[in-house]
């Protein structure tokens, strides 16, 4: 029995099936029951932050074909907006999360609209990168609002609330589990929104755009509108994730959110996991962030090995871990069946 050709796999995997999706959610929801260590939970929460960021970036690049290199801009906008309105205006951090997302989505139009006119991928990449660098410069220099490079500190954590009579959920610095579940909630909402999008008419239009823009346009697909929808959903959830990050860490510096390093991380995660696959970025986030933690013992060699690993992964599995995983599963299945017929 021949292993399934790669091309067929690629088409089948573009959108995950509901069972895999809900299975992943369930697995992620069970993790805190198995792991009680605060340090590990912190790492898992960071994994979820990057999983959400990489998945929303994947929507923009893998599905809508907008090669953005400015995803950190939306992340940072959400983080700073929510931090500033909760500190200065006393808005509840719970309200800060969606408002941070809305603010990011609103400002994303400033770069999104000019970008949609560009057709060559690197131009879009550099224009979006320039947008986020502009925000970094503003953030560093508008000291009266953002305190510049000193950064904002004392950002209020998510306010605690009572659940029933005897359970109170705290979100202060010591309570990792509730924060993990909040981030999981944001992640699941983002994934469901994207899942809904991909299975709707918009999703079909997006897929046709990625395959061939001109053919899609000639069939009457409104390119600009669908790209804009993907752009807005992506930047909204990146903003919400940023807002969560601000309240979770309670300190915020321009470089921690707006730096190119964040973007490199998101790109590496998505590509290692598998770009254009629905759950690839999540797999990539957990693999790379946990992997980087495991390398911590190597001290200065850590990032050297990390860089080398990126190269090795891409050489061995150019389509990402998820595709590589699926291919080996099919191959093993093929071998087993071959054994049976014999």
């Amino acid at each position, binding site marked *: 029995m021949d292993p399934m050709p790669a091309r067929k796999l690629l088409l089948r995997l573009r959108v995950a099936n509901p069972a895999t999706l809900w299975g992943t959610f369930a697995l992620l929801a069970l993790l805190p029951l198995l792991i009680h260590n605060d340090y590990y939970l912190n790492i898992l929460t960071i994994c979820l932050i990057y999983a959400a960021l990489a998945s929303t970036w994947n929507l923009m690049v893998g599905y809508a074909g907008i090669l953005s290199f400015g995803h950190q801009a939306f992340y940072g906008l959400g983080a700073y907006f929510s931090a500033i309105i909760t500190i200065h205006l006393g808005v509840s951090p719970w309200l800060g999360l969606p408002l941070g997302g809305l603010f990011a989505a609103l400002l994303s139009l400033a770069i999104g609209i000019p970008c949609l006119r560009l057709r060559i991928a690197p131009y879009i990449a550099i224009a979006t990168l320039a*947008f986020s660098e502009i925000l970094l410069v503003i953030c560093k220099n508008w000291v009266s609002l953002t305190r510049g490079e000193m950064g904002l500190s004392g950002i209020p954590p998510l306010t605690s609330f009572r659940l029933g009579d005897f359970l109170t959920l705290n979100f202060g610095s010591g309570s990792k589990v509730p924060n993990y579940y909040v981030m999981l909630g944001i992640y699941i909402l983002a994934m469901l929104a994207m899942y809904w999008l991909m299975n709707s008419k918009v999703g079909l239009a997006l897929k046709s755009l990625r395959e061939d823009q001109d053919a899609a346009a000639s069939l009457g697909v409104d390119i600009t509108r669908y790209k804009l929808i993907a752009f807005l959903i992506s930047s909204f959830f990146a903003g919400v994730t940023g807002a969560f990050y601000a309240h979770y860490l309670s300190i915020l510096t321009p470089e921690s959110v707006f730096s190119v390093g964040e973007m490199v991380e998101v790109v590496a995660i998505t590509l290692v996991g598998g770009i254009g696959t629905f759950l690839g970025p999540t797999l990539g986030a957990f693999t790379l962030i946990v992997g980087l933690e495991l390398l911590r013992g190597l001290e*200065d060699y850590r990032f*050297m090995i990390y860089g080398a690993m990126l190269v090795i992964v891409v050489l061995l599995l150019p389509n990402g871990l998820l595709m590589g995983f699926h291919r080996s599963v099919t191959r093993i299945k093929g071998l087993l069946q071959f054994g049976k017929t014999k």
Partner: protein
Amino acid sequence: MFTLPIMIEQAVNGLVLGSMYALVATGLTLIWGTMKMLNFAHGEFYMLGGFGTYFGLMILGLPPWLVVPIAVFLIFIIAFILEKSIISPLMGKPGWDISTVVATLGAGIFLQNFAFKFWGGDFLNVPYMFDGVLRIWGMAFAWHRLYILALTLVVIITFWQIVKRTRFGLALRATAQDNEAAILMGIPFRRIYTITFGLSASLAALAGSALAPIFSVNPWMGMVPLIKALIVVILGGLGSFTGAILGGFILGLCESFSVLFLSSGWKDLISFSLLIIILVIKPSGLFGAKEW
């Protein structure tokens, strides 16, 4: 404040800065033109050029005229090996346009942290290769800055001649114009790719070497030139040779004159805003040429 001598001095500073941008951007545009990929490890070749110069001058005590060619040649070899081992296996395979991005990002992270681990994170100072200043009409120009300008001009003209006159240049242009037709004509495009990658890295290394005395040497010094060079190649039109050079000098001059009326913190806004404005007005870049 806006007297003529100050303006001329700023212009020279801008041209020096611009020559760095032009050299680094030419390398980027060269790779894009032939291989249709963006090299995110490009800034690291600039960094290696800086370190090579530091070691040659300060540790081994060699004269500058020996250090610069040796450093540039060594980096050509490093880039050559890198292309053979990690870029070449990915080229032409499905998804190569994205997998090469990760490969070069990974190589960049590796090289940065290699430098950090073995050479340390200190800001290392390199002395001017040419001492003294030239004084004319009450203005002072450091000889080293003039050397950078002259070097850039010589390199650009030489490079231009190679591309236009030699057989290698012909093969390069053919591959850039139409890869498949070039293969049919029997051009060994793999070898062209490898040599192009090496040449592009050498240009970045040369810029890093020449500018080491002006900006100090450290493992992260390649970041800023890479981002600036990306802006330059877009300004000039991606794949355009003239665009990269003129774009480099334009950006250098803009930044240098902006210091006169903007505080240095806001200086970077100029280049990024310029880029977005150009893309909105003329999406194909200033010189939008597709051939060179």
